[in-house]
């Protein structure tokens, strides 16, 4: 299966060509080249998936296949960084997800970004991102993952800052890069610790279940926790940064300053789930050696999920609502992984989490692209400027509704199946956590339909230009994604992706399923009551909640806290004193040395009177002293 290399090389090639060509090509040519390359990549990915799932099953277990592997950098000792391609169920699934969404975004952008300055640059960056993301998921070792991890970070930076003359976009891109970079520091230190004890980066070795490789770490503790727990927790911090887990989530809402298709691709479907993917990739290590960290991940995920869902209920920028919803849903996935055990029925959470990753990628990309279509028509992100759009944009309306129903978990749309599995796994782990997650599911339904009703129903605004349906290049990707969002849930996911590679069919918990659907419908009805027609109800509710509403509206002031810390601690507390210290103390001491030298020379200079007779006196006395010393000592 060496042709999988092409899946990586083609987008890279496209990036280099488009990047070098820059403005020499017409926009349309650049766009077509990018899209064409991506279609080939998508076709290859589907073929790979088909070939993998039809051939790699040996004895009921999906094997890991490494079609290509080369040593990129050899260190002394056993450590070496390899570059290679690893095919196993989750990486193949990710290949399909990434190439599908990326292709849709490429097509969609042909119309959405039409006439933008820097159209070629946009496609170059998209190719770069696709390359990096594909490289990340097929990584054979943790260091290769780190390499591509950084590359997706920078492509995200470049794409968020695409409108580089807009100060908000520049600030957002900077914030995104630095926050994730900070998290990557944890990832890096985690890798260093892990590789120090295991002497390997390779996923195959780490996940092999061979306890021998962790032997040297056993019994080593630091501050009460085993050193392996520290390593895995630090690696999770890296994942938490990319996946916008609390408290590292602050970059994601701001990242919405980027072009909307970019948000759909990077900040909804692919890059932000890299953290989930990372945990899933190292799942055998987590579950066998550091279950404590895994439980921590579950609670971090649950808290983030609740936190983001509450905020999402109060935002008015439609892209930000979607961003917080993304954070919340990724929290869901983390919970799924966190509560999971290894193998068979125990491993439901793992399977569910991957399933949710898949369905979420589809319906969230759909929602973002749908929102893009709305923004394209209305030229604003604010809910107040919308309303009653269902008449003007029937296709967008329909697909958006499908997306909302899917995320709300209504039978038989895709979200229902994946979310239900996660809930089942959570209830298996702890009833309390399960109830919490069910509540979040209700909140999700509520805020999604708040969004839906505000855009497509409610009071009709007076528009300057009458809004119109988007062109075909935009609606076709929408329809395709809507199709996946609708029917994606029918895929028997447990047959393909499980924690141990063996196929498994979960028994459906009908009570739970029905209750979840009812919760979802309750949320929808609540939203309908409040937002379907323009009423005073929302205002009254927000007033009665008062303080809490204000907190949520302002995202619990986490951004302000960060700003305070960076400004006062980082800049005023560290950088400025250090540069002051350097300029005045270190530099000053050197200048001081010069001043002292000068002072001494001025003082000594006084002895040189220039008067010959004084010199002669000194000379004479010196001679006498010498004579005295020589004669009498």
């Amino acid at each position, binding site marked *: 299966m060496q042709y999988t290399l092409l899946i990586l090389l083609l987008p890279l090639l496209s990036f280099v060509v488009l990047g070098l060509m820059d403005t020499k090509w017409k926009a349309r040519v650049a766009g077509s080249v990018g899209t064409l390359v991506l279609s080939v990549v998508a076709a290859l990915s589907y073929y790979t998936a088909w070939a993998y799932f039809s051939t790699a099953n040996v004895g009921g277990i999906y094997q890991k296949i490494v079609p290509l592997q080369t040593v990129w950098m050899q260190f002394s000792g056993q450590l070496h960084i390899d570059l290679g391609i690893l095919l196993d169920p989750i990486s193949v699934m990710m290949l399909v997800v990434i190439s599908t969404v990326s292709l849709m975004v490429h097509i969609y952008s042909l119309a959405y970004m039409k006439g933008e300055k820097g159209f070629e640059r946009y496609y170059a960056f998209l190719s770069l991102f696709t390359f990096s993301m594909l490289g990340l998921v097929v990584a054979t070792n943790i260091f290769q993952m780190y390499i591509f991890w950084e590359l997706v970070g920078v492509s995200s930076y470049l794409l968020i800052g695409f409108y580089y003359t807009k100060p908000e976009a520049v600030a957002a891109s900077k914030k995104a890069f630095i926050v994730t970079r900070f998290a990557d520091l944890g990832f890096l230190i985690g890798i260093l610790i892990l590789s120090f004890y295991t002497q390997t980066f390779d996923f195959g070795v780490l996940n092999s279940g061979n306890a021998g490789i962790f032997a040297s770490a056993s019994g080593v503790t630091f501050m009460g926790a085993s050193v392996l727990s520290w390593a895995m927790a630090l690696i999770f911090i890296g994942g938490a940064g990319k996946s916008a887990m609390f408290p590292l989530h602050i970059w994601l809402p701001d990242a919405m300053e980027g072009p909307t298709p970019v948000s759909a691709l990077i900040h909804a479907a692919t890059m932000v789930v890299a953290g989930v993917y990372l945990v899933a990739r190292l799942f055998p290590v987590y579950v066998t050696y550091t279950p404590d960290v895994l439980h921590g991940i579950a609670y971090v995920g649950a808290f983030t999920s609740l936190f983001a869902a509450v905020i999402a209920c109060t935002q008015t920028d439609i892209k930000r609502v979607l961003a917080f919803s993304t954070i919340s849903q990724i929290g869901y996935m983390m919970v799924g992984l966190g509560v999971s055990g290894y193998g068979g029925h125990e491993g439901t959470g793992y399977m569910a989490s991957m399933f949710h990753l898949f369905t979420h990628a589809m319906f969230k990309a759909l929602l973002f692209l749908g929102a893009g279509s709305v923004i394209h028509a209305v030229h604003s992100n604010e809910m107040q400027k919308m309303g009653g759009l269902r008449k003007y944009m029937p296709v967008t309306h329909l697909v958006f509704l499908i997306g909302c129903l899917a995320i709300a978990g209504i039978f038989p749309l895709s979200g229902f199946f994946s979310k239900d599995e996660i809930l089942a796994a959570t209830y298996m782990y702890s009833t309390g956590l399960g109830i919490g997650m069910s509540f979040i599911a209700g909140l999700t339904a509520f805020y999604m339909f708040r969004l839906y009703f505000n855009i497509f129903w409610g009071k009709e605004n007076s528009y300057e230009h009458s809004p119109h349906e988007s062109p075909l290049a935009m609606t076709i990707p929408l329809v395709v994604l809507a199709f996946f969002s609708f029917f994606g849930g029918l895929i028997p996911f447990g047959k393909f992706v499980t924690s141990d590679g063996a196929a498994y069919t979960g028994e459906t918990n009908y009570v739970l399923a029905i209750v979840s659907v009812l919760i979802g419908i309750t949320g929808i009805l609540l939203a309908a009551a409040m937002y379907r027609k323009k009423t005073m109800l929302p205002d009254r509710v927000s007033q009665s909640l008062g303080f809490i509403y204000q907190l949520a509206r302002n995202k619990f002031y986490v951004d302000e806290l960060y700003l305070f810390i960076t400004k006062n601690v980082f800049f005023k507390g560290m950088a400025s004193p250090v540069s002051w210290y350097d300029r005045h103390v270190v530099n000053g001491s050197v200048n001081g040395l010069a001043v002292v030298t000068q002072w001494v020379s001025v003082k000594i200079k006084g002895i040189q009177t220039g008067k010959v*007779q004084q010199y002669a006196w000194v000379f004479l006395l010196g001679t006498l002293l010498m004579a005295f010393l020589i004669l009498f000592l």
Partner: protein
Amino acid sequence: MGSILENFTSGIIPMEAYIFVSFIMFFSGIYGFLSRKSLLMVLISIELILNSADINFAVFNRYLYPEHFEGFFFAMFTIAISACETAVAIAIVINIYRNLNNVEVDSLDELKEPEASDEK
């Protein structure tokens, strides 16, 4: 006269006597060099010092190594050199006088850097 010369050659006059003379000459020269204000006096003092050295050369040669002549030669060298040196020195003194209108030693501190605070 003849007896003195005879005494000298036969060693009746002790060497210390000569050295005593040259000692007095040398230190009066040094005293003059250090204390006189006039450049000419300083110059004369230097001559005194040099001449005392000449005497020593001659005396030591005569008394200690009578079969050699290096001491006499050196004394003659020194006389010649001091003559040249005096000529140069007087020329300088004259020039100084032309420039400064006096020949005081203390007024000659032109080479010294004037007092000034430098920047670093």
